[in-house]
């Protein structure tokens, strides 16, 4: 991992389009500003991680096959578009 020391008000460029700015350093907390193109979603890592795990768990729980009461949406009749 690249390590860079920055003071409040200083910035880091990721490529030409993403700017990370250290806004404020106070005790154990650093406030960071992020300027990124619209197309790039920005997540707090812990939230990204828990959603990722939940997505995986949803896929795995379903793949495990122990779904006695989940009404199966089978292929019969073919998939239908959402309403």
């Amino acid at each position, binding site marked *: 991992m690249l390590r860079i020391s920055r003071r409040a008000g200083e910035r880091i460029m990721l490529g030409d389009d993403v700017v990370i700015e250290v806004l404020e350093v106070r005790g154990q907390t650093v406030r960071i500003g992020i300027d990124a193109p*619209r*197309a790039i*979603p*920005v*997540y707090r890592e812990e*939230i*990204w*991680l*828990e*959603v*990722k*795990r*939940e*997505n*995986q*768990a*949803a*896929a795995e*729980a*379903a*793949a495990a096959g*122990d*779904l*006695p*009461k*989940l*009404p199966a*949406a*089978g*292929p019969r*009749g*073919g*998939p*239908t*578009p*959402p*309403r």
Partner: protein
Amino acid sequence: MSLTIESSRFGHLEIDPESVLEFPEGLIGLGGSRYALISEGPDAPFAWLQSLEDPSLSLPVTNPHRFFADFAVEVVDEDAERLGLDAASAMDVYVTVRAAPSLEDFTANLKAPILVRAGQAWQVINQAPGCELRVPLFSGTQANGGTAAG
């Protein structure tokens, strides 16, 4: 143009092009950008997102409004801008379902709903209060919105 895949769950599947959803940002952490939304019909409680890139990947989803009367989605301004959301844009909403051997243990992820519009879909972080990662779908205490509102 018809599309077929050999799904681990469903076997040989003919995919209706109308049911294909493009996820420009993927499902969070799972990657993959093309899924088919497979449903039995408007009244079926659950549908499936079947990956068109990974035949072994499928997730059950449901319409949260069906289980949580006062479910709402609130996103940060950046997300709203990125997705071009405004009051006028109607989007369908789905949430992923974590299945379990017994119904009481089924949960829905209200924190990261999937917004669908015109064949495109985004999984977003819901800022609405009480919308947690694992909310029981069928709770003993009448999961009629009360759970979602928290």
